[in-house]
């Protein structure tokens, strides 16, 4: 068992465990903290796949921006006292059963498609440094790149408008 495989197993265990804890913890703030750990371990997976720039962007965008947004929203709503009523037992049972069934079906699909997966090639060609990514992003994907900026602008305006509207009515 090589060192890389051990690192992969540990990272995967952390990812899956914290994802489960995100769902099962009662306090939303604890969920957010576990989700941050989950995102960091996914960034570790990116580093393992040698996608350094993506790992950094992932840490900045998810662990930085999105989780801060979540934490501020939780604090704004003052949800840290646990007053969530649970779903009825039949719904929870249905959720667990559907989780197992989806896992079973998807894993069965991918196990059966295994013969299609060929050999791993290594050409030694550089395909994931910032230089190559930037060239691909600004040559072939120029138009989607610009549309992404428009999307972010519209989302920003929409978020401000949605949170401000109630104040004007009062």
């Amino acid at each position: 068992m090589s060192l890389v495989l051990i690192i992969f197993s540990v990272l995967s265990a952390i990812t899956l465990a914290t994802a489960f804890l995100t769902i099962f913890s009662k306090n939303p703030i604890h969920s957010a903290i576990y989700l941050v750990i989950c995102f960091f371990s996914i960034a570790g997976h990116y580093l393992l796949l040698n996608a350094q720039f993506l790992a950094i962007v992932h840490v900045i965008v998810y662990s930085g921006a999105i989780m801060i947004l979540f934490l501020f929203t939780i604090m704004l709503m003052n949800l840290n006292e646990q007053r969530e009523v649970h779903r009825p037992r039949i719904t929870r049972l249905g959720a667990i059963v559907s989780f197992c069934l989806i896992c079973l079906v998807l894993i069965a699909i991918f196990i059966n498609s295994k013969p299609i997966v060929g050999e791993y090639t290594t050409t030694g060609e550089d395909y994931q440094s910032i230089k190559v990514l930037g060239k691909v992003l600004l040559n072939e994907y120029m138009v989607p790149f610009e549309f992404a900026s428009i999307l972010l602008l519209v989302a920003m305006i929409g978020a401000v408008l949605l949170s401000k509207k109630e104040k004007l009515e009062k």
Partner: protein
Amino acid sequence: MNNILNHIGIENYIFLSVILFCIGVFGVLYRRNAIIVFMSIEIMLNAVNLLFVAFSTYHQDAEGQVFVFFSMAVAAAEVAVGLAILVSIFRNLGSITIDNLKNLKG
């Protein structure tokens, strides 16, 4: 330069992503708190991103990673608008339990 997938294998990444995605689906079905539902959606998006990067390494192609950038931009926009909607719902109803949001049901 040695390919990392020689040591790990693409199957392990596929299984990890599938289980992570299923955990996300489970969270959406299991919890009532709308914020936790949002977090589960983030987990699902991350599972898909991880698979994109794994296959980008498998095919030695940069386009998978470029797609992950767009997916991150969409996720950031979605979270910003979604949390603004949640704050507005909380101001109106006083709670964000998703079972209370039945006003559209005639």
